[in-house]
């Protein structure tokens, strides 16, 4: 018996095991919403903005490993999702985004709320398609879920014109689709992997560089086992942080622009670099000519196109991280790396990661991060983008039961808070801590309403330095302290305020007032000694989110730092 497209849509979601959908209504999807209304078992979350909606789906996906499912209307509903789709694309987050579209008869007429969303998102989705044939709807939805979740995961956009939703057609939802142009890599070339292993084994100064691909493939345990069996030190990228526990003796730290001194020097000095699941983006490599200059490079990645793209690789291995590591574990024999490990340890002792502590009454970012480590030993830390994010990647201790979720590839301000909401919706039993800046929080602050209405008790650690601190830091270090367009406290006609100036007009908004107006909790912290008590208090709140606002001086810097385009060995330490 034939059924309508809208009925098939819901049937498909149920068969895919979708339990949550993030949806924002509009004329071109009311039919689908009407069908969801009649369906049991799918929670419909109503965010307050479509960009935040997609970030929420990203947080949900990162916390659960399942694809995040989004439903938005045509035109402005669709265009509002673009930034977040790009974010998911660059961080390989599996998403299925359904957009409503005007009826096919109106496509091309510049009809009300018609946009070519498939065209607009072509370069930031794994696959995008406008369904033009009701008969193909089931197959296309199946394709969307399949492509989003296999191989290197990513966002898939399916645009469904209104007439497709209402027309009757086949009721079947396929449980398998063959796609001739899509063959994700599911095996590994053993000969190539053996060659890689032999090279690694021959090294005197080997390093493993672990990227986000370790998390995507769920290879954390295998990574640690392999490193332990071989006695090889591990450096992570920001996206790979937590793939090996922070206190592990073989863990060196994060590398990259704001990485640890020892980690960047170790990468610079190593003779064989085994990199797994990272695409060597410029924040990791710095000046390409000076990146790991003495090293032969082995690159394991599931995506062929990521290999030999940014750095020239000696042995490419196209494989899922978990698969490659489990094979190599079978061969692994301990290497004599004691001297090398001691050398790295010494670099770490020479330049440990620590911030200059300010006057006693001030609040230091390091102290905040350490407080979070103490009060929340487990859970998921979700960050926004800026200085606070870098402090989090430096000082938050991650491991296999403490994850970090951050916007790495695109660096999207406004990501953190909604992503944290999505993570909590996906993993309600876990502590979810959002670390955000005063700038980024304001980019999606409206989601306070979503968090209240959906009962999402997350802890929002808002690092308020009254500034777009990351940019201010650049202006401070490289642009002669000419602070333009970075102070969020500056009033027209007045000079840019000094950090925490008591004689200057108040910062707006009053975040405590914001918390109160939404019916959330608010705690303001201005001293190091109050950090722990505030976080413990926030942890108790189970019915609504808590904003813990930390008042920090804008002069706090993220160090060490490598200036963009410089070699990784040239770190600014003080």
């Amino acid at each position, binding site marked *: 018996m034939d059924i309508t497209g809208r009925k098939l849509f819901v049937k498909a979601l149920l068969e895919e095991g979708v339990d949550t959908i993030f949806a924002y209504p509009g004329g071109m999807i009311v039919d689908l919403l009407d069908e969801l209304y009649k369906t049991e078992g799918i929670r419909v979350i109503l965010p307050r903005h479509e960009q935040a909606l997609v970030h929420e789906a990203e947080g949900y996906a990162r916390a659960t490993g399942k694809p995040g499912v989004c439903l938005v209307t045509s035109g402005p509903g669709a265009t509002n999702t673009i930034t977040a789709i790009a974010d998911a694309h660059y961080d390989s987050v599996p998403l299925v985004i359904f957009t409503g579209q005007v009826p096919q008869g109106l496509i091309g007429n510049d009809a009300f709320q018609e946009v070519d969303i*498939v*065209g607009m998102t*072509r*370069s930031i989705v*794994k*696959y995008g*398609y*406008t369904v*033009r044939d009701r008969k193909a709807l089931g197959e296309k939805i199946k394709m969307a879920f399949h*492509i989003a979740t296999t191989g290197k995961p990513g966002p898939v956009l399916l645009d469904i014109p209104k007439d497709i939703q209402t027309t009757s057609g086949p009721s079947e939802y396929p449980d398998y689709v063959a*796609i*001739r*142009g*899509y063959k994700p890599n599911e095996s590994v070339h053993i000969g190539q992997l053996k060659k890689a292993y032999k090279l690694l084994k021959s090294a005197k100064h080997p390093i493993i560089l672990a990227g986000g691909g370790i998390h995507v493939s769920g290879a954390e345990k295998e990574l640690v086992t392999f490193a332990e069996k071989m006695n090889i030190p591990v450096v992570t990228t920001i996206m790979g942080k937590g793939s090996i526990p922070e206190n592990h003796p073989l863990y060196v730290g994060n590398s990259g622009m704001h990485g640890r001194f020892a980690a960047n020097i170790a990468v610079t000095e190593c003779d064989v670099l085994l990199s797994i699941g990272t695409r060597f983006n410029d924040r990791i490599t710095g000046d390409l000519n000076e990146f790991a200059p003495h090293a032969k490079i082995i690159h394991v990645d599931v*995506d*062929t*196109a990521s*290999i*030999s*793209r940014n750095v*020239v690789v000696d042995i490419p291995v196209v494989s899922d991280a978990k698969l490659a590591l489990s094979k190599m574990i079978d061969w692994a024999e301990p290497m004599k790396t004691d001297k090398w490990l001691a050398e790295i340890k010494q670099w770490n002792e020479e330049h440990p990661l620590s911030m200059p502590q300010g006057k006693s009454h001030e609040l230091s970012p390091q102290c905040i991060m350490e407080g979070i480590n103490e009060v929340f030993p487990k859970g998921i830390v979700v960050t926004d983008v800026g200085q606070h994010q870098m402090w989090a990647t430096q000082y938050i201790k991650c491991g296999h039961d403490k994850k970090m979720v951050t916007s790495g590839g695109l660096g999207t301000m406004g990501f953190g808070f909604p992503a944290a909401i999505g993570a909590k919706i996906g993993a309600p039993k876990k502590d979810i801590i959002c670390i955000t800046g005063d700038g980024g929080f304001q980019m999606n602050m409206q989601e306070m309403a979503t968090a209240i209405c959906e009962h999402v008790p997350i802890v929002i650690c808002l690092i308020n330095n009254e500034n777009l601190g990351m940019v201010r830091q650049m202006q401070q270090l490289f642009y002669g302290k000419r602070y333009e367009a970075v102070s969020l406290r500056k009033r027209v006609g007045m000079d840019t305020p000094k950090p925490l100036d008591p004689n200057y007009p108040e910062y707006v908004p009053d975040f405590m007032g914001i918390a109160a107006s939404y019916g959330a909790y608010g705690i303001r912290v201005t001293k190091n000694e109050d950090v722990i008590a505030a976080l413990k208090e926030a942890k108790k709140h189970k019915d609504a989110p808590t904003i813990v606002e930390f008042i920090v001086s804008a002069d706090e810097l993220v160090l060490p730092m490598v200036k963009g385009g410089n070699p990784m060995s040239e770190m600014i330490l003080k």
Partner: protein
Amino acid sequence: MDHTMKNRFIALYVENDVGVLAKVSGLFSGKSYNLQSLTVGMTERDDVSRMTICVSSDDVTFEQIKKQLNSMVEVIKVLDLTCVPVCMKEILYAKIKDLDHDGMDAVFRIAETFRVRVKDIGIDCLILECMQTERKNNELVALLKRQFHNKVEIVRGGPVAIESISTTDSK
């Protein structure tokens, strides 16, 4: 690895579907690859189109281009034609106008030498139809432009290629 820029050829089997051409050409503009020509047409199968693409690049970029194309869901197969024997021709029409008697004669001589057809003719103008390699077409265009400055109108289709059966290369 060869770091010199040279012309390379790819044959691409793609889904015959809306937006696929835009997606493929978008890759070249989006990633700043140097696209020389792109032709597309139907094949023996209704649901498959085939493109012949010429890019100018070094080895590293060319490898990357092939991988990027391969990773598109809409792309069914990527064939590198740079180093295999192929039959490859380009269609070109040249309309030459405002010719006097001597000019006419000259064009006929050129046509004969290049072995291209005079397809159409008027009192003071004619059209050449040229089915030859891209390189030959380039030479012809250069010659016509030099001799008949401001009098030539050129339209070209871009090269179309298929792998040879024998091992002779007719690029």
